[in-house]
């Protein structure tokens, strides 16, 4: 049947015909039986589809969606205004650490993820033909090579890497054992992994100069080679933790992403006060104290931080002056402070055994009196972060508390290499940039870290050993390697569907 008749029939059924077209339609139906049959067929289907449309239960979108939209819009408006209020707290020390920890947990996951991905790329390279053999032939006859278009776009400088650091790594026995174990292959076939590799979040992070500077820094190499780091990686508690649904939930929760993306967070991360505190031995000592984790993980802590009295105190204009002052009496005379002390949340917190244990430790006292700590408290960045609603939401989530309760984190945080890394400018810049936050909060990343393949790989002893091996660290620090990672063509190549076959 002619196309114009088909469209005439369809438009009539869909009430889209003009009066003249409707007249033509009626004439067509009266004289053409095939047209009539087609009309009946379409009509019957359209009726059925309309009935289906009526009877399909509208999949209700979550009520969370609206809340998230509004929060995002409010945040956006707030960021534009950039109002700064100077606030601080005596309890700020506790939260300062919680902030550090959440950063570290993400950093660790990202570092492991990055390392795993590098390794998979190498493993894929081993199994694949060399660069010269990448091109194939058409029809089996070596007349003309069909060059894969993406491969040709990676520059020669990128490929020279294979001859140097790469070869060292490939000859590393630990690496070979890992490849043979099949764990790398399993992960490379994992759907979440493939998705993450193909995601712009992943690429953006790898292409960011901050990330590349950080992984090339000697601090990073030292951390990777640190026995404590290796111990943490291989500990079953750690793999359980980062592969747990609660961890995935936490990292994929909107409040978490919001916190990472908040300007207050970025400002704190790049502040020199923060870097100094993170690198201070006082801080390291306190964070290894079990009471510290216990306190952060306690529901009382979350209740206090999210209570209205706390918020009031934080936003008090004279609080900054009070807290900076050595005269404690002045602080206690503030009506906001009195309100906080009188709040049931505060009473619950201070009467909890974990709080009492923490404040009675010499580590706590030492940190409180350390100049680094005082400086951090006196700066505006910390106060801004602590008083942001994102922060309150995050610390009150059960996932956060579970994470805080893990003893492995504190062990890592206390290691000198880690604190050195934290205090370095590269790390701070990375944390303050949007790329890292975007990757960590991307659903692909959460899915990958919570996948059993990932858990299996990172708990493999060979994997841990390899992370600590000098050849791996040399490779990571190589400028060629960083350039390769940041090359968009290379990203296209590895994220192509054929890469993992």
């Amino acid at each position, binding site marked *: 049947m002619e196309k114009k008749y*088909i*469209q005439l029939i*369809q*438009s009539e059924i*869909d009430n*889209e015909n003009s009066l003249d077209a409707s007249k033509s339609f009626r004439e067509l139906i009266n004289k053409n039986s095939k047209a009539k049959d087609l009309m009946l*067929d*379409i009509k019957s*289907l*359209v009726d*059925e*589809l*309309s*009935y*289906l*449309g009526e*009877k*399909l*239960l*509208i*999949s*209700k*979108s*979550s009520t*969370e*969606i*609206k809340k*998230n*939209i*509004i929060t*995002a*819009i*409010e945040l*956006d*408006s707030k960021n534009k205004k950039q109002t700064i209020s100077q606030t601080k707290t005596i309890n700020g020390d506790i939260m300062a650490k919680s902030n550090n920890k959440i950063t570290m947990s993400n950093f660790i996951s990202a570092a492991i993820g990055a390392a795993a991905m590098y390794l998979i790329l190498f493993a894929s390279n081993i199994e694949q033909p060399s660069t010269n053999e990448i091109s194939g032939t058409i029809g089996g006859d070596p007349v003309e090579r069909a060059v894969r278009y993406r491969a040709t776009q990676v520059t020669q400088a990128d490929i020279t890497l294979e001859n140097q650091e790469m070869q060292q790594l490939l000859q590393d026995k630990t690496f070979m054992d890992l490849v043979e174990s099949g764990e790398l292959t399993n992960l490379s076939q994992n*759907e979440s992994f*493939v*998705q993450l590799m*193909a*995601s*712009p979040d992943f690429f953006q992070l790898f292409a960011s100069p901050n990330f590349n500077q950080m992984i090339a820094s000697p601090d990073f190499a030292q951390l990777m080679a640190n026995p404590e780091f290796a111990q943490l990686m291989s500990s079953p508690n750690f793999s359980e933790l980062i592969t747990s649904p609660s961890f995935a939930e936490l990292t994929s929760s909107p409040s978490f992403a919001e916190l990472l993306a908040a300007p207050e967070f970025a400002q704190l991360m790049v502040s020199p006060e923060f870097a100094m505190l993170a690198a201070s031995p006082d801080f390291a000592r306190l964070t290894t104290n079990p009471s510290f984790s216990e306190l952060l993980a306690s529901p009382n802590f979350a209740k206090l931080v999210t209570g209205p009295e706390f918020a009031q105190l934080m936003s008090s204009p004279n609080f900054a002056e009070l807290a900076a002052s050595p005269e404690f009496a002045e602080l206690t005379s503030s009506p906001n402070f009195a309100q906080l002390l009188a709040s049931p949340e505060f009473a619950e917190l201070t009467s909890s055994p974990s709080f009492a244990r923490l404040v009675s430790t010499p580590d706590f006292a030492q940190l409180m009196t350390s100049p680094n700590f005082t400086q951090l408290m006196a700066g505006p960045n910390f106060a801004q972060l602590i008083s942001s609603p994102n922060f309150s939401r995050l610390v009150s989530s059960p996932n956060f508390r579970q994470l805080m309760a893990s003893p492995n984190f504190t062990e890592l945080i206390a290691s000198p290499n880690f604190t050195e890394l934290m205090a370095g400018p590269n790390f701070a810049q990375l944390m303050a940039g949007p790329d890292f936050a975007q990757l960590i909060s991307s*659903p*692909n990343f959460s899915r990958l870290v919570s996948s059993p393949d990932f858990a299996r790989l990172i708990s493999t002893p060979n994997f841990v050993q390899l992370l600590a091996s000098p050849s791996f660290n040399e490779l990571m620090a190589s400028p060629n390697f960083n350039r390769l990672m940041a090359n968009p063509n290379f990203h296209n190549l590895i994220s192509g569907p054929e890469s993992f076959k």
Partner: protein
Amino acid sequence: MNQSIIHNLIRKSLNGDLKSFEVLIDEYQDQIFRLILGILKNHATSQEITQDVFIKSWKHLHKYDFEYNFKSWLFKIAVNESLNALKKTRIFEEYDENIHVIESDIDDIDTLRLNKLNLAITKLSQNQRIIIQLKHFENFTYKEISQILNVSEKTVKSRLYSARMVLKDYVKEN
């Protein structure tokens, strides 16, 4: 909700009144979500994209042309965001089963028939599926669909016809 009320809400939103924008969210959130879910077939990602659609529409509200149907404008953003998400993340490989469920107030024979038709829709190509959703579940006109998808009305008619023929054949065969 008629266009003048909607336009009034948009004007207020443009002046920074978030409450007015919330009313618009309430009005369209479920429809937008249903469309995105139909395209992406994944609940979690569809929720994220629904959020993105409204955040984006808030940011670009000043670009909205009052001559244009607001629902079409919003749906255009939704379709674009969904297709971008598909390109970026390949989530189409991760289908959620039973993304749409039939109401239970109809008899078994009807349920069976509608389920069959519903299943047939999931077998359509992406372009065909979107057209069927826009036409039959959201009741857009050819013109509106052409604006949403940025194609000619002729293309809309042709895609709609081919989608219907695929559905007809599938239902007949099964």
